């Protein structure tokens, strides 16, 4: 038992202590950790992981249709027959057989590539990291679509890049916006290191770059001597058509192409890749060796075995049909239930709908109300580096069942109506309009890894 101090004398009975920040290293962190803080938004996403909540926030692929018996047999045989190789260190560039298979996958999008130019990475997320690592010094500019993938923005911030956004429309990145971004950046005396683009079934915008626009975008970059980082995790998940022709298919030297098995097979293996011009590839391999020694050998061989044994294209077809059903459920529910002033796109592939709210509604401020109503989404500001996107949100249809999607949209519509009522009460008094308040930001208002 502890001696209990007498009431009123407690502060005299304890050892005088000094002040503490509860983090001994607080003054030693690198500048790039600024913004790595707890946030209300991340706290709210913690609730979104509960089953009571319809999460339209997360981008988790729905892999319930995978043939687990086939995968299980493949992995069992892998251990039995090649276990000592699979569980050993491997090449920094990746398993040769898998790199050959990756070339077959990319051929579906018109890419002719040699396995020597492929570097396997820990998901395409690591490929974004490695490319940024070898190209960007602090203050260098990366041009990104507006909006852009939150995970890539996080990488660019970690390397202290300046992010310049260029507008998109229903046909993807707007060429004139790209020209203007390049001109303005160069006029400001800054160095552009690359354009980061997700041309197919964009995360979060849900749109694809039109076939007509692709040569123009490539030409603009060629003229300005700007490298293109083509991130394409969703390219094979189109609902109504053959895969789009990759930018890389028409420009071998000026494009680094990133691919992933996370959406076409399963994200747990963490296998993605970069296809890069020879000299760049050499540096990526060295960077990969520095980062991980080698990408996980076991995962690569498991993916390779799955590709060799299973009708993986048939599996992707099953995924496409499942996602199409979910897309239909979401779009129908939005049409039926959302207030007229909302706007959204109808994606023809991928996972996401980008929804724009009525003027004056702030999606981030509304999130607590949504969580109370047991529905979650990602506020639009997460996808911008400059504070824009307040009146938008990303809705994912990839994971919940169609019935749950409809229920989620029903809840969201109710939340929005309440918020509109509140804005009607206070709205004319809250100014300036949110999107005109845009300021550079460095926080991380993104879903945690179990939701992305």
């Amino acid at each position, binding site marked *: *038992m*502890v001696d*209990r*101090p*007498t*009431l*009123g*004398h*407690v*502060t*005299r*009975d*304890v*050892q*005088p*202590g*000094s*002040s*503490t*920040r*509860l*983090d001994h*290293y*607080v003054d030693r962190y690198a500048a790039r950790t600024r913004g790595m*803080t*707890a*946030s*209300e938004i*991340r*706290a*709210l996403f*913690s*609730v979104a992981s*509960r*089953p*009571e*909540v319809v999460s339209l926030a997360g981008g988790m692929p729905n892999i319930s249709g995978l043939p687990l018996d086939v995968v299980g047999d493949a992995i069992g045989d892998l251990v039995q027959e090649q276990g000592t190789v699979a569980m050993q260190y491997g090449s920094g560039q990746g398993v040769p057989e898998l790199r050959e298979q990756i070339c077959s996958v990319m051929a579906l999008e018109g890419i002719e590539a040699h396995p020597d130019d492929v570097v396997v990475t820990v998901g395409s997320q690591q490929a974004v990291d490695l490319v940024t690592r070898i190209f960007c010094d602090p203050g260098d500019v990366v041009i990104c679509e507006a909006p852009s993938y939150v995970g890539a923005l996080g990488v660019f911030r970690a390397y202290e890049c300046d992010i310049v956004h260029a507008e998109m429309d229903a046909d993807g990145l707007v060429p004139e916006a790209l020209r203007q971004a390049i001109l303005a950046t160069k006029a400001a005396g800054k160095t552009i290191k690359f354009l980061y683009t997700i041309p197919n079934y964009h995360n979060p915008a849900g749109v694809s770059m039109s076939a007509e626009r692709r040569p123009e975008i490539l030409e603009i970059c060629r003229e300005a001597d700007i490298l293109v980082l083509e991130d394409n995790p969703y390219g094979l998940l189109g609902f109504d058509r053959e895969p789009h022709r990759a930018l890389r298919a028409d420009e071998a030297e000026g494009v680094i192409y990133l691919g992933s098995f996370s959406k076409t097979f399963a994200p747990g293996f963490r296998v993605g890749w970069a296809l890069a011009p020879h000299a760049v590839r050499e540096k990526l391999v060295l960077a990969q060796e520095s980062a991980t020694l080698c990408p996980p050998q076991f995962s690569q061989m498991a993916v390779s075995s799955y590709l060799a044994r299973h009708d993986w294209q048939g599996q992707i077809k099953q995924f496409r049909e499942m996602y199409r059903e979910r897309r239909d459920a979401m779009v129908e529910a939005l049409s039926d239930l959302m207030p007229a002033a909302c706007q959204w796109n109808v994606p023809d592939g991928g996972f996401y709908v980008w929804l724009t709210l009525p003027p004056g509604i*702030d999606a981030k*401020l*509304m*999130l*607590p*109300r949504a*969580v*109370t109503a*047991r529905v979650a989404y990602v506020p639009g500001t997460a996808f911008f580096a400059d504070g824009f996107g307040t009146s938008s949100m990303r809705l994912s249809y990839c994971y919940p069942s169609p019935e749950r999607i409809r229920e989620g949209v029903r809840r969201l519509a109710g939340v929005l109506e309440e*918020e509109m*009522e*509140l*804005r*009607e*009460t*206070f709205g004319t*008094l*809250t100014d300036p309009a949110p999107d005109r308040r845009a300021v550079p930001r460095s926080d991380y208002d993104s879903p945690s890894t179990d939701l992305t």
Partner: protein
Amino acid sequence: MTATPSETGPAGRVVVLAGGLSHERDVSLRSGRRLAEAMRSHGIEVEQRDVDAGLLPALAAQPPACVIPVLHGESGEDGAIREVLELLDLPYVGSRPAACRVAFDKPVAKSVVARAGVATPDSVALPHEIFRELGATAVMEALVRRLGLPLMVKPARGGSALGASVVHDAAALPGAMVSAFAYGPVALVERFVTGVEVAVGVLDDGEEPWALPAVGIEPDGGFYDYTARYTAGSTRFSVPAKLDDDVARACAEAAVTAHTALGLRDLSRTDLIIDDAGTVWFLEVNSAPGMTETSTVPLAAQAAGLDLGEVCGRLVRRAIARCAPADPPA
């Protein structure tokens, strides 16, 4: 159904309830992990559980010796989960439901504590409907006229400063109201007191409740918001707070008075501000105070030479003893 009460022996299996569906779920999970670790280091058998449809069947299948609800926000601090624990005749650590309901409602708690003689800043609690019915501009003008500036605006129920903001300029009041109403239907608008912010834990593990050393709070950004609370390194804590003896005594007395007046039990934390004149102002009380790595109660306990696991063990044994057949619940 429950373990034999004992003042010194092992407490038996303890279930720590953490998580839930409130906006403070993440904080609760962190608090639960911290408490569970602290108790395990004292040899106490601990199971951490979320509050979901599986909870009651699990408690029925294997009744614990005691439950510690470490749930923050709705259902955790509003008394709901404790009502259910009482229905199940399970011993639990912490305040009874009725006291929680009063303490969780900030405007009600302020009036109770004020009646007990502790100063609390002038405030007004209003539901969002009243602004619509009467016109937001007129109501807000009246608020500013009455309370002055700056103002603290926060949800009437809830914690971790979620939805709370300081308003220095009347033009920012509408935005602050909207932020508060995102978390609940009633907002508390309070005169902002400039001064030294302290948190005082009250431990009720003997004959009478007593105050742990006050913890001084100096957030880097000036406002002890969610980020400042849960990001290690972004707030400077003084333990004990650098206060004159008489002020420290006044803080301790204010916290114990709040704890007693609200009928709280076992453990609470009272948040106070000391203005330049040395007046101690009551802000709010927490019946399930945070126990995370950056929370103030564990810091205060440590400064008082207490071990968190040992304190929990003692509170568990008291809770069990309260429910023993010879000593029915109050």
